[in-house]
Structure formats: structure tokens, C-alpha cells
């Protein structure tokens, strides 16, 4: 039986990925989350939110041991964890093989190697795969030293060198000798035959992947500020981008809580065009054109069925996200129930999404590229929707369940029209359409200035008639609607920084609890990076750098970020790692790079 142990803190988990799915591995060597065959598939190891019956795959010391080192190999996706055991050292080196195309390799291939230094070390392997919501146990059998577990269309195999008699659900003791590492290979087959890979060959594949990742990161500007952190974020963004469609998943997990013990648990294994567009800007900012092109092509394809309406989120293949449902019997991460799959925000009207997407297209054009005429048609359609619907209430960037007149949404509507008009300077547009967009853009600006600004606070506010602030308004200096020098922009930045402060560099996205949901939540990490960006782009470079540095100190030990953070304890909250947070980090660093060297 798998020993009952509480899940590790969220920040204890490292990310292993192959750009098709991802695993989360704790510092005790336990993979507590892995969905197959792709990010939004069924969990094979789900202990993170499903408890011990949901399965795990632990490889590590036989007894509790002290972690003395944990890191990604530089500029790669290979993770190393080292424990001190009775005066010796045991190191787990692990990765998923990303590049399997064009070769006879399984689509999902996980390689884990234990090696000892200083003497023999007692280790253990706990392999307990359980599939899906009902934690289905496999039909297991051994074939010539290979453990094969089957569930109909899905099968996994576990191969080891030296050979190991692993039984699912039972810890298997093993002694690792110096110079004789234990290499385990997990292969997954879905609707296809299993492909067995010799552990030595699989280990070579990890080396080849490392070389590819290093080559990929070598193309990132050397002089980029905080380059090592930016590289880790870009690697994380790439690992979370589903290569078959080029769509970035918001996070590889579901239902890691924003409020531990509470009900704010959501499924993020889908694609939000908003988050993805921010990611496109991040990739373009460091010269990674392929990712930007891939995303625009995906968006064009995915939005086709509902165009010109832009759905708030899609599946990885651009399909409608399944309705939200709860998994009965799943205890959740530290008793945070319910555990949800699917997402109820799919049908919301979110005006801001159009702004992010059109802005991504503008950044692409600004970088010297031309939109295909079909892409431009799609962008024109989005701008038309904004011109027609901007007065309607929407769910906004925070996806509140009760629609409202959100100032941030209006600003992003303004952004969509403004950037579409800029693109039209080099792309064909009828005079009538141009006039309609200009008229709507000007009307939005006039209305937002009249109804969305509170002179008493010298700040724009969350929604018309409200006195609440909204940290999403930190995008204001990037839009160009008001001058970055203006009192409105500076006042908004200062008001948000002061009144939404969660202590240190952290910000709440809006006054905590003011969203109609039960419970509360932590500080929202992307907002802090947006503050860095706002400060840098308004000439407050020194403040921006100080804040950025402080935020880096809040990263997980492996440089990863969740969506939120408990301001009191510094614990990461919410799904993890988060595309939006990492994209915001990269954009903040780029804003620092592009800011004048001298403060205003």
C-alpha cells in the first residue's frame, strides 16, 4: 500500500514536461500529478488532489532524508534532486522526452535515474498508477522484465536497469550502488501499441533533449535583465505549450486551491486566449517568432466556429470546454473541495479577451511581419465585435459570475480598436469600418474617463460607480490612451500599489472577497509583475527593479510560480505552475530592459 503522507507544499513541486503533458514531482521524489495522454487527459497519478487512492510514482530514499540540492540542469527541463542518506548521497535525475517525432518512440516517455555517491544507499520505488476519476487499478503483468499496466485503450510500461520486480501499489526496496545507477523508464501508449525503450537508450534521449533545450535558450538575448529567471519562465511557458496545436495551457493542474480548505478550486488545463496572447508578446519580445506564429495560427483555427465571437477559453484542440463538474470522493489538496474538471467560464462574455488578442497581432505586425489576409479578417471581426458590444456588461478579466461594467474591460476594448486601427495602417480596411472603429474607440475613452475615474482617489476604479480598485488596471500605461506622464496614470498606479498591497511586493487583484464567491484568496502574482511593468514603462526603473527582485525571492526553489500567494506565509496558491504568471514575469523583465536607464 502507498504510505499515507500529506501532499507537499505547492512550491515544493517541480515541473517535468514534454510539451504534450506534464508531471509534478515533489522533493521526496513522488510524482503526484500526471495526466495522459495530454494535459487535459485523465490523471494517471492524481494524489495531488485525489489523495493516496489516486496514485503516485515515488522514486527516492527508502526512509525520510534531507534534500541537500534541487535544481534544473542549466537551461534544460531536466530536474535533479539530491538527498543526504547516512553520509552518502542519492541523486534523482529525471525528465520527460519532448522530441519523439520521426522516431519509433512512445508519445509520453518519462525517464528517472537514481545514482549514489559515497556508498550504497537504500532506496524505494512506489509505482501505483490509477486511472481517472474512479482511480481505476490496472490489469498488470510482467513481460520479460517489463511491467505492463493496461486499462483498455491506455497502457503504460515500466522498465528498469538493473531489472526490478516492481508490483503496482507496493513499495519495492532497492539498493543503489555507486557507479551502478538505477534507471526507470515509463512509456505510455494511448490507442496504439506500447513501444519499449531500453533504459540506456532512454537516458541518451534525455541528453539529446537537453542539448535541444540549451540550443533553444541560447537564442535568448544575453543582455536581458534577470536572464536566468526569464529563461526559466520561457522554458516553463514552452513546456506548457501543447506542441500538436501550439496552444499554451493555463496550468497543468486542476483544483489546486486559491483558498486552502475552501471551494475556489478550478480546472486550468485549458487555453485562455488572453493568457496565451500575453505569452505571445513574451515570446516575441525575446525573438521566439515560431511560438508567436504557432499561437496565431492556432487561434485562427480554434476561433473559426464561433467567429467573430471570441470564446473565453478553448480546449487544446480548440473545442468547446466541457461543462464544469465535481469529482465525488476526491478529497482535494489539503481538503480543498470540490475538485472540479471542466470550466464554467467558457460561456462568459469577456470583452478584455479581444484586446489581448488584437494586441498580440499588433505586436506581431510591429515586429515586421505581415498578417495573412485570413488572420486580418479574423482580427477585423474581433474589432467589429468590440465596436458593437463594448457598452454591454461582461464578466471581465477576473471572470466574476455576475457581469458588470468593468473599467478594465472597457480599456481593453479600447486597446482592441486602437491596435486594429494601427494594423490597418499597413493592411487593407474600408473607410467605413475605419470610421466605425475610431468612433467607438473615442467613445470608450470618453466614457471611461467620465464614469471609470474617481477623482477622490485620483485613480481609475474597478467598475462604473464603484470605489474599489482593480490591479488589472496596471495595464493602463501600456495602452497609450492616457499619457504615461498623466496624473490619471500615475495616480492609478500609486493608488493600486498602496490600497491593494498585500505586503511586500504582493498585490491583491481587487479588495479580497469582493467577487461574490465564498471564502477569500491570496495575492495575485501576475498583478505584481504588471506593477513592475507599469513602473518601468512610466520611467520608474529603480522602483521596478527593486520590486522585480523582491518578487524573484518569492519564486519556488525551482523558480516556478503559482497564480497566487498567501501574503502571510508566502505559500503558493492556485494552479501551478501558471502560464499567466510566468508570461507576466517575462514581460516585466522586458519592460525593465526597454525602460530608460535614468529615472524620471
Amino acid at each position, binding site marked *: 500500500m502507498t504510505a499515507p503522507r500529506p501532499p507537499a507544499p505547492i512550491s515544493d513541486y517541480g515541473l517535468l514536461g514534454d510539451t504534450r503533458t506534464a508531471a509534478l514531482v515533489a522533493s521526496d521524489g513522488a510524482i503526484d500529478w500526471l495526466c495522459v495522454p495530454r494535459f487535459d487527459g485523465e490523471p494517471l497519478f492524481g494524489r495531488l488532489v485525489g489523495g493516496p487512492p489516486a496514485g503516485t510514482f515515488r522514486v527516492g530514499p527508502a526512509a525520510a532524508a534531507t534534500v541537500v540540492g534541487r535544481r534544473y540542469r542549466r537551461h534544460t527541463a531536466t530536474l535533479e534532486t539530491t538527498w543526504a542518506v547516512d553520509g552518502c548521497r542519492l541523486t534523482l535525475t529525471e525528465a520527460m522526452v519532448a522530441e519523439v517525432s520521426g522516431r519509433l518512440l512512445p508519445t509520453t516517455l518519462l525517464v528517472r535515474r537514481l545514482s549514489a555517491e559515497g556508498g550504497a544507499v537504500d532506496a524505494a520505488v512506489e509505482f501505483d498508477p490509477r486511472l481517472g476519476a474512479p482511480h481505476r487499478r490496472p490489469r498488470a503483468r510482467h513481460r520479460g522484465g517489463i511491467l505492463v499496466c493496461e486499462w483498455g485503450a491506455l497502457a503504460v510500461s515500466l522498465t528498469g536497469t538493473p531489472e526490478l520486480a516492481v508490483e503496482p501499489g507496493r513499495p519495492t526496496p532497492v539498493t543503489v550502488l555507486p557507479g551502478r545507477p538505477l534507471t526507470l523508464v515509463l512509456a505510455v501508449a494511448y490507442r496504439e501499441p506500447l513501444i519499449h525503450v531500453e533504459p540506456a537508450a532512454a537516458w541518451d534521449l534525455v541528453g539529446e533533449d537537453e542539448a535541444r533545450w540549451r540550443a533553444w535558450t541560447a537564442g535568448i538575448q544575453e543582455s536581458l535583465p534577470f536572464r536566468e529567471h526569464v529563461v526559466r519562465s520561457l522554458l516553463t511557458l514552452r513546456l506548457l505549450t501543447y506542441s*500538436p496545436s*501550439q496552444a499554451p495551457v493555463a496550468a497543468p493542474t486542476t483544483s489546486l486551491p486559491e483558498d486552502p480548505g475552501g471551494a475556489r478550486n478550478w480546472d486550468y488545463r485549458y487555453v485562455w486566449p488572453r493568457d496565451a496572447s500575453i505569452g505571445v508578446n513574451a515570446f516575441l519580445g525575446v525573438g521566439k517568432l515560431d511560438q508567436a506564429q504557432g499561437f496565431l495560427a492556432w487561434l485562427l483555427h480554434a476561433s473559426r466556429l464561433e467567429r467573430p465571437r471570441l470564446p473565453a477559453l478553448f480546449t487544446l484542440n480548440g473545442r468547446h470546454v466541457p461543462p464544469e463538474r465535481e469529482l465525488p470522493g476526491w478529497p482535494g489538496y489539503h481538503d480543498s473541495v470540490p475538485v472540479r474538471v471542466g470550466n464554467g467560464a467558457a460561456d462568459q462574455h469577456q470583452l478584455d479577451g479581444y484586446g489581448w488578442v488584437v494586441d498580440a497581432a499588433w505586436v506581431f505586425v510591429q515586429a515586421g511581419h505581415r498578417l495573412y489576409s485570413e488572420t486580418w479578417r479574423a482580427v477585423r471581426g474581433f474589432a467589429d465585435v468590440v465596436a458593437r458590444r463594448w457598452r454591454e456588461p461582461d464578466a471581465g478579466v477576473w471572470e466574476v459570475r455576475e457581469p458588470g461594467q468593468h473599467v478594465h474591460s472597457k480599456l481593453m476594448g479600447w486597446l482592441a480598436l486602437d491596435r486594429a486601427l494601427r494594423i490597418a495602417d499597413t493592411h487593407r480596411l474600408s473607410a467605413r469600418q475605419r470610421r466605425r472603429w475610431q468612433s467607438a474607440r473615442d467613445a470608450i475613452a470618453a466614457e471611461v474617463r467620465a464614469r471609470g475615474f474617481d477623482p477622490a482617489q485620483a485613480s481609475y476604479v474597478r467598475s462604473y460607480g464603484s470605489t474599489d480598485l482593480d490591479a488589472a488596471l496596471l495595464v493602463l500605461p501600456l495602452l497609450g490612451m492616457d499619457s504615461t506622464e498623466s496624473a490619471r496614470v500615475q495616480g492609478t498606479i500609486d493608488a493600486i500599489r498602496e490600497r491593494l498591497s498585500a505586503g511586500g511586493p504582493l498585490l491583491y487583484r481587487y479588495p479580497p472577497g469582493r467577487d461574490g464567491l465564498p471564502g477569500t484568496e491570496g495575492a495575485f502574482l501576475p498583478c505584481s509583475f504588471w506593477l513592475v511593468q507599469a513602473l518601468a514603462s512610466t520611467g520608474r526603473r529603480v522602483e521596478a527593479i527593486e520590486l522585480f527582485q523582491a518578487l524573484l525571492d518569492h519564486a519556488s526553489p525551482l523558480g516556478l510560480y503559482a497564480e497566487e500567494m498567501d501574503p502571510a506565509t508566502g505559500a503558493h496558491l492556485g494552479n501551478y505552475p501558471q502560464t499567466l504568471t510566468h508570461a507576466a514575469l517575462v514581460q516585466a523583465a522586458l519592460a525593465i530592459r526597454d525602460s530608460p536607464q535614468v529615472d524620471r
Partner: protein
Amino acid sequence: MDWAGWAVFGLVATAALTATMIAAQLAGLTRLDLPLVLGTLVTGDPDRARVVGFFIHLVAGQGFALGYAAAFAVLHSATWWIGALFGGLHVAIALTVLLPLLPGAHPRMASLRAGPSSTAVLEPPGLFALNYGVQTPAVAVVVHVIYGVVLGLLLRAH
């Protein structure tokens, strides 16, 4: 075999199939765009690809029509319902064999095994082309049955 009918009505049937599929796309029923899928074999520009793909599709449709004409000749019968049955068989092969095989041969289509170095941008169709929308199999069946019915009505059996 009805060679003259094949020469003319193969084009008519393919045009009917294409028109119905475009109508289904415009109605938001599917993202399956055969001219785009075929044309991107040649070029990465979606607009040019559609033009090229349309002609490739016409040629392919004409090729399939040859099979229909031959089958009608063998059966000594050409009726709308036999054409519809052939259309059903045709679409079954297209959805279960031809489209799933495409990622292996298409230079701009990613496969489900695509990795970080993939620069392919066209999404793989997946099982029954469901990645292009849940109604895609139904649309594909309808347009191919129309293709078969048109040929069944217009071709002669000998």
C-alpha cells in the same frame, strides 16, 4: 463505363461537395477545410492554399468519381441510393483512414507526437476529424453522401 458522364459530372459532384462543406463552415458546424488542408501541402499562406487546394480537391474528386463510375458499371446500375451508399463508404474511409494518416505525410500538419522543434501549424484532425469540431463527422457524412447521390443520379451504369 460512362466516360463522358465521368468527365463532366465528377466535377459537378466535387463542386457540390465543396459548396456544401463551405456552407457548413460558414454556419459554424465544422472547421474542416479540405481546400486548406490540401493546399497547405504546397504553400503556407492560407489564402493561396485555399485556391491551390480547391484545384487539388477537384482533381481528387475526379479521381474518386472514376471509382464510382466503374462501380456503377460493374453493378449495371446507377441510382441515387447506390451513390449514397458509396458516399457512406467513401466518407468512412476518409475519416478513419485518409485523414488520420495525413499528419504522417503533410509537411505543415503537426502530429499528436509533435515536440518543441515542430513548426507545423496545421492541427492534426484526430480520430474522425473531431479536432475540427464535434459535428465534423456528421458534416463529412452529409457532404460525401451528397457527392454520391449526385453521381448516382447523373452517371449512367454503362
